[in-house]
């Protein structure tokens, strides 16, 4: 007999289960089914591929999964899919989660440690799940003298701002959540929110270390925003547009990093500072001020900030790829045309006996798959270079940090702008040049 349930008997368990099943059936038939019928009267069913989709067809698709392809395809064209799954939050969170694990493992290997090892038997592959479960199940503790509304809102706002940043990044041709003409300006506007949220959350904790960290974060983010914006202006001058999609399309032949390596270096250093990564991690310097502006966060609030941080990391790396590395452009690694017989005749499993006809193929355009492959490869490479300094460099001092931002990077960004001007006026790029 176990200590947790001393009066356990199998009969009681079976009785409880059957009891629950009985009540579920009774409630479903008496309340659930009439409610569903009433709702169904008022719903207009979508017309997909010339057929009206009703619940019976959905049940039919459940027994024949290949018939649900048009429904899946239709769903993938909706805004909800774009926001929640593919170029939006789900995709970014997947990459962010992968980065957390890879970062721990990579740092361990760099420092001749083992890293996460026990969760999931194989190289600690389930460590992330374990950490997530731990964060969710922990109690959220709010400091007694904290300003509660702001303290509660700050992690949510941080993750939401990072998600808004992700929404502006085009991943593959036609696959972007918010396709606006002034995409780059919108990126600058979104980046401007991070210091506000940081300093507000730091102030609202009403504690010493968060406030010091928040002030440091404010100094750092505000002073590195200026070279960050200036380093991208050269590309805007060369392409003559602020639209991120058009900037990617202008890099069909060559990526801009060939012409503006200085801008790329300045932008990369600014990314490191904006993301508060080593060597610029003064806002969270754990050996000086506990955990900086994150000190008072606990449980899932800390988890949300961490999620936002890694989504922001993905978004900045993706912005680097979009601006300097040519986005989704790359040689074809995926077959250009899908196999024609599969679309027209279906897949022949047993000749003459069994043929599976798939009406919704191809599910994705080949262009989109190829673009996504290249985009993810480049983004992962940039993220790797963002992670690498953490294993190598010490932390810089705050006055040196500000000096780097205000004296050196801004000057270099202007040098980059003058290179862009020289390229335009000498006729190398632009009308008459190679573009």
């Amino acid at each position, binding site marked *: 007999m176990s200590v947790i349930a001393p009066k356990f008997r199998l009969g009681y368990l079976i009785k409880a289960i059957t009891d629950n099943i009985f009540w579920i059936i009774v409630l479903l038939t008496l309340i659930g089914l009439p409610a569903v019928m009433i709702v169904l009267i008022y719903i207009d069913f979508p017309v997909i591929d010339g057929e009206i989709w009703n619940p019976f067809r959905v049940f039919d698709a459940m027994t024949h999964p290949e018939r649900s392809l048009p429904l899946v395809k239709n769903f993938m064209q909706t805004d909800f899919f774009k926001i929640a799954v593919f170029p939006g939050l789900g995709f970014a969170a997947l990459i962010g989660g992968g980065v957390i694990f890879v970062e721990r493992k990579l740092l361990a290997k760099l420092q001749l440690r083992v890293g996460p090892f026990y969760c999931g038997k194989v190289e600690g592959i389930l460590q992330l799940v374990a950490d997530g479960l731990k964060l969710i199940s922990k109690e959220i503790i709010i400091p007694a003298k904290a*300003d509660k509304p*702001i303290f509660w809102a700050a992690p949510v706002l941080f993750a939401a701002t990072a998600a808004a940043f992700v929404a502006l990044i085009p991943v593959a041709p036609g696959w972007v959540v918010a396709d*606006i*003409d*002034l995409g780059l*300006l*919108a990126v*600058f*506007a979104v*980046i*401007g*929110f991070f*210091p*506000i949220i940081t*300093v*507000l959350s730091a*102030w609202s904790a009403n504690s010493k270390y968060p*406030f010091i960290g928040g002030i440091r974060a*404010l100094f750092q983010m*505000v002073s590195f925003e200026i070279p960050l914006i200036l380093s991208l202006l050269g590309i805007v001058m060369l392409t*003559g547009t602020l639209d991120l999609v058009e900037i990617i399309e202008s890099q069909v032949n060559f990526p801009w990093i060939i012409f503006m390596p200085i801008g790329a270096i300045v932008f990369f250093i600014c990314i490191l500072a904006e993301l508060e990564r080593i060597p610029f991690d003064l806002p969270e310097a754990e050996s000086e001020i506990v955990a900086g502006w994150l000190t008072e966060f606990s449980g899932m609030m800390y988890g949300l900030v961490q999620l936002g941080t890694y989504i922001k990391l993905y978004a900045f790396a993706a912005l680097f790829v979009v601006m300097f590395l040519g986005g989704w452009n790359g040689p074809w690694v995926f077959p250009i045309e899908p196999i024609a017989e599969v679309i027209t005749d279906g897949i022949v499993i047993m000749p003459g006996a069994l043929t599976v006809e798939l009406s919704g193929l191809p599910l994705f355009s080949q262009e989109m798959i190829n673009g996504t492959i290249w985009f993810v490869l480049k983004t992962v490479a940039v993220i790797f270079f963002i992670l690498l300094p953490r294993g190598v460099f010490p932390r810089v001092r705050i*006055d*040196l940090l500000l*000096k780097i931002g205000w004296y050196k990077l801004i000057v270099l960004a202007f040098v980059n702008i003058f290179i862009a001007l020289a390229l335009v006026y000498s006729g190398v790029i632009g009308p008459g040049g190679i573009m």
Partner: protein
Amino acid sequence: MVDSLFLGIAVLTIVSAIAALEMRSLIYGGIALMGTLGGIAGFFILLDSPFVALFQIAVYVGSIAVLILFTIMLVKNELIFQKKEDPKRRYAGIALMLILMISLGAVIFNSGLSSITTEEPPVDYKEIGEDFLIYYWPALIAMALVLSGSITGAMILARRQDGVEDEQRTD
């Protein structure tokens, strides 16, 4: 759709403006001010000028509001703000504002501005830039000179007079 959006943004802007004036806590006042400035950006989007709207967000919400919040946090508010409660002043202010708004509204409604309808597309920001660089370049350069002069003046004013060198500097 646009009307309900307009109403929503108008209510947000006005309510947060009143809150920015009336809040006891200065930090919340600053946050309400951010709401007001963001609402104005919403108006610019409704007026088909996203360029101005995004700059409104980037400059006013992103930078000016941060400066205000930062200043509030660093300064002890008892030192600079002495609370003088005087209901007469408040009512006088509200009355003055109402008179101003009503007279301005009357002028605008009688001017024929409300009956103008145009079918023209929104102005392209590239045209604005070209105008600035070709037709209005003296104004642009004068503005740049004034700005750099004021920054230089501010730096001279903020310079330390006592000649104490920071001892921690090693570089």
